[in-house]
């Protein structure tokens, strides 16, 4: 059986040393995409891809993107939570690709909450 592996790790390695030296401090903002079956079926992966794409473009190292399960509000999926250090988390509902990009660029990067799409403030429970 022919085994294939990624060949060009050396090139990527150079990139790593170049970029990780710029990394400083901890994360300032956490973006959570809710990825239950309900979220996935209604487009959470598109939302995750959008936020990853914007994060890659921004080059910011103080933003972490993560996923979590179903929150119990399946009808409002895809749901995204944006949590700035020291602030209450903001939950957005019915998020799609363009909304996610706007939320990332305005709220995550600039701190401007996109109130028109906000579902709730605070944590569940």
């Amino acid at each position, binding site marked *: 059986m022919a085994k*294939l592996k990624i060949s060009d790790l050396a090139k990527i390695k150079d990139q790593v040393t170049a970029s990780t030296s710029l990394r400083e401090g901890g994360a300032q903002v956490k973006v959570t995409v809710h990825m239950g*079956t309900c979220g996935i079926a209604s487009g959470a992966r598109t939302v995750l*891809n959008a936020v990853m794409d914007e994060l890659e473009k921004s080059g910011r190292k103080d933003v972490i993107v993560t996923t979590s399960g179903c929150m119990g509000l399946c009808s409002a999926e895809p749901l995204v939570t944006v949590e700035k250090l020291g602030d209450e988390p903001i939950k957005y509902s019915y998020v799609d690709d363009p909304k996610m990009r706007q939320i990332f660029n305005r709220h995550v990067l600039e701190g401007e909450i996109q109130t028109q799409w906000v579902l709730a403030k605070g944590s569940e429970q």
Partner: protein
Amino acid sequence: MEDLSLHILDIVENSLMAGASLVSVAIEEDLQDDRMAITVADDGRGMEPGFLARVTDPFVTTRTTRRVGLGLSLMQANARSWGGDLTVHSRPGEGTTVRVWFQRCHIDRPPLGDWPRTLFGLILTRQEVDFYYCHRVGEQEFELDTRELKVELGAEALADPQIMALLRGQVVEVLGQMGVEQVPALPLEP
């Protein structure tokens, strides 16, 4: 679910909810026998036999937020309609293995979808979890192991979306060489 990679993502999310620290995904394509099989194995907390017996029942879930659990039942119903089935093996404390197989060229079988992007989305968002991915097409095999990548590139590199995008590009290339179906490019704007 629009494509197979969404189903895989859904099953992997179950593994993550079960507290897995290693999730392995194997995709096997047998062109001669026209079969395709996907195996997702984890080292999470596993399931009691009583729960395991009912796990593909849509009215069974571990969640307390609502009373239906659709992921596995949906995948099983689909696999059956594509001439295959889904099985789940699990033991408490030893993890869970979900195996699904079906006819590769069945007319209702959805495309694989953007699996590389899905996988790298998982790797980037779940730093604390290791992923092993293996793809076989006939005699060719591709492997990717985040434990090896962490040794080669350092754990920090796996949290960097730019580096992961480079790596994803290479994975797409290798899979293309193996003849794995690719996601068609988006149609150009008129």
